[in-house]
Every structure is written in structure tokens, then in C-alpha cells.
């Protein structure tokens, strides 16, 4: 994006949907000036929303200070304050929202509510340089295929039950080898393929039957073979639905977003599929693949330019904010 120094906009963005409290600063010329992230790690077990929220409140001031220092920016230089408004855990979201409201009010700057899933996609477009991709979004508990069509990111396909990442994590844990990437590492030593339920409905997928069937085979067949079978089946289902979505949406780029994008085998499969259609594949690099403040700041820049800001009284968090409920007006401006 070409913007002269004079009309360059700076937005500070706050991410706080789950484990991560992050603060990023981005400019309208597409520069990430700061990206400071603190991750809450529970002592044991899964995330407890209220404890994560307490962690976020404790760390907020420090993260803000560090981000401003990293960017070499004074609060008064900022043109907008963005925060992740959803989807996510209510108590966590409220911390980010409260901090953002306070800064916006204090500075008299516009407040910008960003959809967390949209932000994952937008930072991916910025960093990889792809323009109009079909997106395989395999972050957190999500598995969906989406693409920008007519004003929004539309959901072309998704899981009908559990997420692909969950399926492989649960399998690995129950098999005693731990979550991903362990199942994929074991799969490399697999030799025999056992057929498992392969459930594809149009562009939708379903993994729960496959998981149950694989767990039943535990102890009956070689673990390496089972790992090979489950990873190959899950990845084939994702690649096939992605292939169908690519044809359906008539796009030429593929963007992988989220944790499973780190899987070498999945990436290899998708690249082979893309070759058949002369499509290009992009993956978000690890630094920006997890939840982070920079993605909220950058999406905040886009929304500020497109006039998608919020009044304080409309800024309640939306824990169940679906991707396709968010308008993407900047895309209509060609951004």
C-alpha cells in the first residue's frame, strides 16, 4: 500500500481471545512496528478462562509499554485503537476490550473492533503477499475453508463435528505419544495403510467417526501404521475439500492459516494438489501463525481506512462472532 508519510496511519491492536495477550502496532504502509505477546500457560490441564483473564490484566500495562517502545511511537501518534472483539473466551476478551476502550477514550481516537479469524487471514495476506486466496483455516478448535466473496469472508466448508487438529491431538494423547506433531512423526515410519472412515460432504468434513475407528484399532495394529493411516486420511480429506473449494470459488491462491499449517506432510499434499490447478500456496510463518497483537493492529488499519470503527457503546465483546458475520469493506476498496 502506498501512503506518504503525511497521511500514514498508525493503529495499535490488542489481542486477547484466549491464551495470548498481545499488543501490536501497524502502519498503513504495511509495516509491523511492534508485536509483543505474552502467553498464559496453565500449570496443568487446559485453559481456565478466568485465570487467563487475570494473567492478561496483570501483563497488560507492561505489554503496552513494551510495544510503544519497540515501535518508537508516542500514544498521541496513534490514529486508532483496535482490539479483538471475538470470537473467543468472554473473560479474556473483556480484558482486551476494557484496555482498548480506556486508551481510545483517553486519547480521543477511534475504537476498532476486529474479528479474530479475519485478523488471522489479513496478517497472512500481508506477510505472504497473496491477494485473493482460498484459505484453509486450521487454528485452535477451528477447521474451515473460506474465501472472500462479495463483501465478506464466506465459509465454503468446515468440520461438521471436531476440528482436524483436535482429532490428531486426541489420537496422539490416547495413543500415549502426545499431541501433534507426534502422530505425524510416527507416521513417517508407517508402512501399512489401514482404511478408516473417510467422510467428506461437499466441502465439509467430519472427523469424529474416523477418530473413534482409529482409537478402536489401538493395540491391534502397529502404532506407526495407524499414525500413517490417520494422518493420511485427515490430510487427504482437507486437501480434497480445499481442491473442491478452489474450483468452486474460482481462485488461484491458497493460504494456510493456523497450527496444522506447520505440518510438512499436509503442506506437501496441498502443494501437489495446487500444481494440478496452477495455483500458488502460501503459509503464514510461525511468528504470525499463532495469536498475536500485530494481526489485530494490521486489520485495525484496514478497518480504519474503510471506516469500520465502533462507538464505545457498541463495543461489547462477541464471544461467538462468526467469520462470515464480519464485513470486510476494505476488500471492496481493493486493499
Amino acid at each position, binding site marked *: 500500500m502506498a501512503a506518504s508519510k503525511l497521511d500514514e496511519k498508525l493503529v495499535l491492536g490488542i489481542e486477547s481471545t484466549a491464551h495470548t495477550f498481545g499488543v501490536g502496532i501497524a502502519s498503513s504502509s504495511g509495516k509491523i512496528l511492534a508485536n509483543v505477546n505474552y502467553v498464559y500457560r496453565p500449570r496443568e490441564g487446559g485453559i481456565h478462562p478466568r485465570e487467563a483473564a487475570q494473567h492478561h490484566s496483570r501483563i497488560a500495562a507492561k505489554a503496552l509499554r513494551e510495544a510503544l517502545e519497540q515501535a518508537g511511537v508516542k500514544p498521541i501518534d496513534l490514529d486508532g485503537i483496535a482490539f479483538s472483539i471475538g470470537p473467543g473466551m468472554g473473560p479474556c476478551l473483556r480484558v482486551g476490550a476494557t484496555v482498548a476502550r480506556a486508551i481510545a477514550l483517553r486519547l480521543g481516537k477511534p475504537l476498532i473492533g476486529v474479528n479474530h479469524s479475519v485478523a488471522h487471514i489479513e496478517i497472512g495476506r500481508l506477510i505472504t503477499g497473496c491477494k485473493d486466496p482460498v484459505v484453509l483455516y486450521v487454528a485452535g478448535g477451528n477447521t474451515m475453508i473460506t474465501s472472500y466473496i462479495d463483501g465478506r469472508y464466506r465459509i465454503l466448508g468446515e468440520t461438521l463435528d471436531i476440528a482436524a487438529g483436535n482429532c490428531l491431538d486426541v489420537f496422539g494423547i490416547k495413543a500415549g505419544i502426545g499431541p501433534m506433531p507426534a502422530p505425524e512423526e510416527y507416521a513417517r515410519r508407517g508402512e501399512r495403510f489401514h482404511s478408516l472412515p473417510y467422510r467428506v460432504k*461437499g466441502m465439509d468434513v467430519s472427523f469424529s467417526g474416523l477418530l473413534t475407528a482409529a482409537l478402536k484399532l489401538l493395540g491391534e495394529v502397529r502404532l506407526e501404521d495407524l499414525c500413517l493411516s490417520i494422518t493420511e486420511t485427515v490430510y487427504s480429506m482437507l486437501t480434497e475439500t480445499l481442491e473442491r473449494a478452489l474450483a468452486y470459488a474460482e481462485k488461484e491462491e491458497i493460504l494456510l492459516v493456523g497450527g496444522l499449517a506447520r505440518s510438512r506432510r499436509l503442506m506437501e499434499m496441498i502443494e501437489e*494438489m495446487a500444481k494440478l490447478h496452477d495455483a500458488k500456496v502460501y503459509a503464514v510463518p510461525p511468528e504470525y501463525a499463532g495469536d498475536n497483537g500485530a494481526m489485530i493492529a494490521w486489520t485495525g488499519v484496514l478497518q480504519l481506512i474503510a471506516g469500520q470503527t465502533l462507538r464505545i457503546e457498541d463495543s461489547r465483546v462477541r464471544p461467538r*462472532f*462468526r467469520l*462470515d458475520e464480519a464485513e470486510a469493506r476494505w476488500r471492496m476498496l481493493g486493499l
Partner: protein
Amino acid sequence: MEDARPIEGGMMIGEKLEVIRIGAEAIISRLEWNGFKMVSKHRVPKPYRFPELDRWIRDRRTLHEARVITSLRRLGIPCPAILLMDRSEATLYLQLIEGVELKKVLDSLPAEEVERLANELGRMVGRMHRGGVAHGDLTTSNIMLDRMGNLYLIDFGLSAITDDLEELAVDIHLLDRSLESVHHRLRAAFMRSFLKGYATAAGMDFLQALIEKVKEIRSRGRYVEERRKRH
């Protein structure tokens, strides 16, 4: 292991005239055999898939599609007739339908025509469902429209012979979402006429049970804003 045959294998019959569609899983070609026009649907090997899995998927879907088309024709649902099946090549030879994908023309049709087609489609799908078949990939690219304004269903590779309400409801969910994502301005009017037509063929009670099921699918974690509203 399957040997890596070229896409146009030496065993194909007839003379290939043109490739009509390169779909995600199959290549559809128009061909002529002893003066007879037809199409071939060749499920091509996917190099990205584990070979055994690939062969199994292609063979199963070819065989399955043939079975489903046979039962649909028996039910009087317009779809291309099967002329030949060649399992060794994962290829079906089918009746040629001279028409276009509904997806390509739907947005440019007059409103009354959209409603008429939606109603007609509703009747077809209602009849298909009462006959125990779920399409499995019911989007506007898998519906053909010919010059006379007749609709045909195509591509049954993901279909199921079933009377499980859930599988049938997924069809409605997929159709609705394909409208939402690609023809969203027409979605409301289209679905209204579609459901009217569906009720005519399948009965109001059946339709209501089905709609409940569609709502349930949509509320299952993913369509979460709707789930919240229900509570």
C-alpha cells in the same frame, strides 16, 4: 500398487471431442462413439493421496455413483443415464446433457424464473429424498439447466443411499450455504420457493422434521451465534 497411467489412458473408448469440465475430482469430456454423443467422467488419480487410499476412493465413488444414478432414474429424477462403466479406469460413460451449470446463469435470470427453477429443484430433491437418496454435494455447480429450462442433477460421487434424516438435511444445508456464499442476494427467495417445492413432493411433515434437523446441524458448535439465540 496402481501404475501411473496417463489421464487419457489407452483404454478410453470413443473419440474425444473436448474437455467440458475439469472438476476437483474428475475430468468430464464430450466424446463420440460410432456417431453417438456422450460424456465420460474419469476420476483421475490424485498424486497427493496415498496410492491405496486413492485407488479405493476412486473405485468406490465410481461404483457408488453408478448405483445411485440407477436408483434415481428409477425414481424419475432427471439425471444423466449411464451408458457404460469402466471400473479399471474409474470412468463412467454418461448421457450428454446440453446445458449449463446453474451457478453460471442463476444470477442473471429474471426473478420469476429463479423462483420457478427453485420450486422445480425443491420438487426434485424432495422426491429424491423420499426415495432414500442424499446427494452429498448439492451446490449450484452440480445442477444443470438445459435450453428448454429443464433441470438435471449431476455428480453423485458423494451421495448416499439412506433414509437417515441427518444425511438428507446436510443436502439442504449445503445448498443453502452455496447460495449464501455465491448467490447471497437470491438466497432468501430461492430457498423459499425451493422449500415450497420440496413440501409438494415430500409432504409438509417431512419437510418440518428436516428443517429441524438442518437447524440442529447449524447449531452444532459452528453456527454458534444461532446456538446462543436458541438458549
